[in-house]
């Protein structure tokens, strides 16, 4: 056990070895490991960001879906309301038309009845005149008989 020149030689060997190990093993491997760690960290961060973006997109989709559902509901309600209004309008219109048709029909009927009554009256009068003429021809004054007959017809028709 002695300290001699080997000691100096060992210092040289040791320090040279430290330098060469740093240059050829530790340096390149440590750089590569750090680069890999950075890459992994970057990937994890990107994955986290992706998850976050997915959550945001999911929330956005849900929000838009809710808005769309509300909009669809609003449109549906509006359509139902409009449909009810159109129905109501159509009913009103149909009812008015029907009333108008009925009124018109009644008027026409009244006019027709009136016309028929006038025609009938004239026809009856003519018949009566004809009859009276035949009677008068036989014995009576025509004017007097006509007046008499019209009076009788008027009374009869008024009662009818």
């Amino acid at each position: 056990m002695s300290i001699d020149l080997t000691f100096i030689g060992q210092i040289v060997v040791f320090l040279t070895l430290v330098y060469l190990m740093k240059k050829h093993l530790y340096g390149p491997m440590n750089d590569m490991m750090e680069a890999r760690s950075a890459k992994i960290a970057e990937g994890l961060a990107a994955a986290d960001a992706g998850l976050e973006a997915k959550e945001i997109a999911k929330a956005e989709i849900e929000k838009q879906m809710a808005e769309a559902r509300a909009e669809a509901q609003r449109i549906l309600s509006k359509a139902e309301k409009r449909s009810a209004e159109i129905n109501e309008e159509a009913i009103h219109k149909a009812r008015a038309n029907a009333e108008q048709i009925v009124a018109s029909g009644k008027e026409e009927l009244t006019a027709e009845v009136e016309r028929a009554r006038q025609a009938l009256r004239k026809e009856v009068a003519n018949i009566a005149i004809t009859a009276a003429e035949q009677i008068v021809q036989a014995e009576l004054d025509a004017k007097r008989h006509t007046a008499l007959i019209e009076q009788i017809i008027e009374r009869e028709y008024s009662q009818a």
Partner: protein
Amino acid sequence: MAQQGHEGGIAGHLHYWTLQFDQHNPFMQIHLDTMLMTIAIATVMVLFSKWLGARLTSGAPTGTQNFIESIIDFVNQTVKDNFPTNNPLIAPLALTIFVFIFLCNTLDILPSFLIGNIAGLFGIEHFRPVPTNDLNLPAAMGISVFILVLYYEFKLKPLHFCKELLFEPFTNLVPTPLKPIIMPINLILKLVEELAKPLSLAFRLFGNMFAGEVIFLLISFLLLSGGIVGMVSGFFVGLAWSIFHLFIGLLQAFIFMILSIVYLSIAHQPVEH
């Protein structure tokens, strides 16, 4: 070149293959076996690093790269846990200390006389294959770490370090007139404290490995000279000690690494006001 000693027994196997430059100056010699083995291990480490460096993949690592990455990750984590600031030299230094000492220590589990006998074939009388059994290597590594500690102490907080050497802890406790008397004592004690760091680093590793080698030699003598019973018991005891010593080698490598990090970490600690 001169070769030492011809004693028998364990002591006969504790000599180095030595090249002496001056017979009268024990410092002027070099342990060729230690130098050869450390250079061989360092060369293997560097060649392996270059080989692996050419095959690195930035994707999912497999096989050798995965194993080395797990070691680098372990060293990085240990440095990060103990170091207050970022210094790009500390982690490679710690990695080199850990791997280099572990590989040196692992040579101890080879059969005791194997490499010595192979060296004997080439006419080398003594050959000790485990470099950490030679105090020169642990001391060289301990002193290198100590020089780095001093460098960072003087670089990062020179005034604080000088103040600490002269005033902490005793000089500050005495009245002002006594301070000049206590200051040199404080300085001597602090120097002892600082020098104890590399010494403890070196002697802890050397002591453990040297004791391990002596026990291996004892077991091998038991195995070779104790008859059938001695051979059988020596084989099993040797096997158990090899496994235990492998663990000790790993543990000593880790302790040397972690203490080096801690000493350098203390040098990097910011000054508290």
